[in-house]
């Protein structure tokens, strides 16, 4: 890959890691606060717990992910198609827009003018720069996807009969899904949030805004997840010393996310008044359907890892698991990510279950769940990827593979303890997004004390892990002198791509199915909410 293109990808990763550095640093503060240790008074730039939480949510879950994904999938597309990006300039333009957006939103948050948390629910009213900034971030991702599609189209012209390599295929699926899904956020932002924050309308309708937000807000989790799947399917089997079990099934699992990921967003609004119970139930049913491709992924990955273990000499039923290259930090991180993700998937079924959701909705259970999924399944996978990708891009060997291994272990252990604490707190009814240590009612609930200690202890272990990761990246960039010998891992498959039907790559078919299902799932609810539009004036409450 050309130096110029490596530089483009690297800069995506730098912004990603920078955002994680600031955003995730808030995490231990929050965890310790839950345990009753308030360190906020020592952090001069934070006016409140909630300002820190806004930074934590936005920088981790919107900025770290978006930049890592854009960089990684750009890399994967170009590397597996074995051709340069369609336009480097377009690539830098996208990066520039996204970065300007992050600076705007970050400035508003750091000056306490947008303490609205990452969901930005109106009528909370932040500084316009915040909403403009996040909008630019989304627009940037559209440019990234345009670039990848144009690159693919050039490749397709030269290879009219070949199957797209699995890595590039996964990258395209991710962006097709995301381009459709992000329309909700764009509409909310342009027609509701920005006019509200500029004061050009008298107010906006909070439920309608929530419906648009969650139209994007659920599929966005697959935007985070699919790049991890791309790595698990198309790279990890090779890194582990084996073969992917089935390439066509991997493709099918990825594809199913395009139609099924979008019409499920109402499951985040089960407890919202103003939305019909019947439509909530339809989304609940579809949520169970979208669980299916993840279950397929679990099977295909286990079979592939078993294949790898056996290739490394394993016998018997379970020996293969221990024969995997656990000493390779990139592999270990991703295996831990898979295990934590599986646990998160199980608590996700509870969230999705229409009325069981009442026990956990908006409690600490929910952040417990998504730290296992996006905070571990995705984040720890991205960390694992960066352990080979950054050496590849910079030509410098990892500063300390041993520290990287410790990092993976500590994230795993820390997250198990933290996740256990949060889920438990949630079952006891502790609300999320709440400065629990200072809550006036917390003394009335002595049963919250023990799980809060787990949250605090897990948080400290996670902090160690986070800083090991950040030190690793910085030290690799500045102090690692030895040159790296890295190959891009590309797994072969037991059942290869030639078995995949060609209509898997008829993008129009999948887009059509997705648009149809999304319309079915959403149009009646949106029309109903529009006819009952009730504007509520924006308010600053921090």
């Amino acid at each position, binding site marked *: 890959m050309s130096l110029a293109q490596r530089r483009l990808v690297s800069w995506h990763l730098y912004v990603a890691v920078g955002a994680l550095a600031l955003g995730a640093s808030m995490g231990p503060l929050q965890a310790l606060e839950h345990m009753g240790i308030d360190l906020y008074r020592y952090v001069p730039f934070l006016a409140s717990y909630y300002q820190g939480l806004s930074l934590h949510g936005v920088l981790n879950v919107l900025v770290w992910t978006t930049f890592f994904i854009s960089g990684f999938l750009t890399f994967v597309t170009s590397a597996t198609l074995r051709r340069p990006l369609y336009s480097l300039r377009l690539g830098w333009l996208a990066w520039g827009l996204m970065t300007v957006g992050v600076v705007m939103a970050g400035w508003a948050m750091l000056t306490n003018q947008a303490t609205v948390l990452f969901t930005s629910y109106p009528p*909370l009213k932040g500084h316009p720069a915040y909403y403009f900034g996040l909008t630019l971030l989304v627009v940037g991702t559209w440019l990234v996807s345009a670039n990848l599609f144009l690159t693919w189209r050039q490749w397709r012209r030269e290879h009219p009969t070949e199957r797209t390599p699995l890595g590039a295929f996964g990258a395209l699926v991710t962006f097709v899904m995301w381009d459709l899904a992000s329309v909700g956020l764009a509409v909310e932002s342009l027609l509701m949030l920005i006019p509200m924050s500029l004061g050009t309308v008298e107010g906006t309708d909070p439920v309608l805004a929530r419906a648009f937000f969650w139209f994007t807000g659920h599929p966005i989790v697959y935007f985070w997840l699919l790049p991890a799947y791309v790595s698990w399917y198309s790279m990890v089997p090779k890194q582990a010393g084996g073969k992917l079990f089935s390439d066509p099934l991997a493709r099918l699992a990825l594809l199913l996310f395009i139609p099924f990921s979008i019409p499920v967003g109402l499951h985040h609004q089960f*407890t*919202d*008044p103003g*939305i019909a119970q019947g439509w909530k139930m339809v989304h609940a049913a579809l949520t169970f359907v979208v669980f299916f491709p993840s279950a397929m992924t679990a099977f295909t990955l286990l079979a592939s890892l078993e294949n790898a273990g056996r290739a490394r000499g394993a016998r018997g039923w379970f020996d293969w698991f221990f024969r995997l290259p656990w000493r390779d930090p990139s592999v270990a991180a991703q295996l831990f990510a898979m295990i934590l993700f599986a646990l998160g998937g199980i608590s996700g079924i509870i969230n999705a279950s229409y009325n069981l959701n009442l026990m956990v909705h*908006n409690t600490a259970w929910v952040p417990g769940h998504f730290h296992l999924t996006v905070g571990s399944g995705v984040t720890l996978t991205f960390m694992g990827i960066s352990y080979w990708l950054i050496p590849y891009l910079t030509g410098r060997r990892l500063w300390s593979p041993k520290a990287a291994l410790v990092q993976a272990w500590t994230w795993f252990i820390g997250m198990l303890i933290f996740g256990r604490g949060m889920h438990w707190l949630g079952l006891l*009814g502790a609300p999320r997004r709440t400065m629990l240590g200072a809550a006036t009612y917390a003394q009335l*609930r002595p049963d919250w004390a023990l799980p809060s200690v787990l949250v605090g202890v897990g948080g400290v272990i996670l902090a160690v892990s986070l800083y090991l990761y950040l030190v690793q990246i910085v030290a690799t960039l500045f102090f690692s002198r030895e040159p790296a010998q890295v190959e891009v891992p590309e797994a072969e498959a037991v059942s290869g791509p030639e078995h995949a039907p060609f209509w898997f790559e008829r993008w129009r078919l999948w887009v059509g199915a997705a648009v149809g299902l999304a319309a079915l799932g959403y149009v009646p609810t949106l029309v109903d909410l529009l006819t009952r539009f*009730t504007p509520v004036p924006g308010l600053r409450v*921090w």
Partner: protein
Amino acid sequence: MQIDRYERRWMVLTAVTLAVLFVAVMGSVLGAGIQVPGIDGQVDPRALASTPPFDRPGLRELGPGRYEATIVAFIWAYSPNEIRVPAGSTVTFTLTSRDVVHGFRILDTPVNTMVIPGQVARVTHTFTRPDTYLFVCHEYCGVNHHTMYGRIIVE
């Protein structure tokens, strides 16, 4: 496309498990009557003072053992924030918000709803045993969000 024998079994097993789980959930909706909030009306959040029933928040007896509790949420409290009912009462909570989005979660019960300005939320629960139940705001509603709670005293 060829699908491996084990993979096919796994897919069938997954589909059956998910279907069973979904049917179980629906069974509890119909059987135990546990309902999530639905469409229960709208109000102008700026005119609550003149919109019944929110002009007079509080507890009202509807019949023997049946009550309606009208609660207005605002930054950073509920009005009223204390309700007393006898054990065995079935209470319908009718809520709305005067300003931003709040939450309403009665701890140790399945009662859980968002309280959204402009919308009326209605949830019902039967309190069988005497106890003090806390209800807390579980949606970020500003810098004193963690001070927003109330209690239901079941005597």
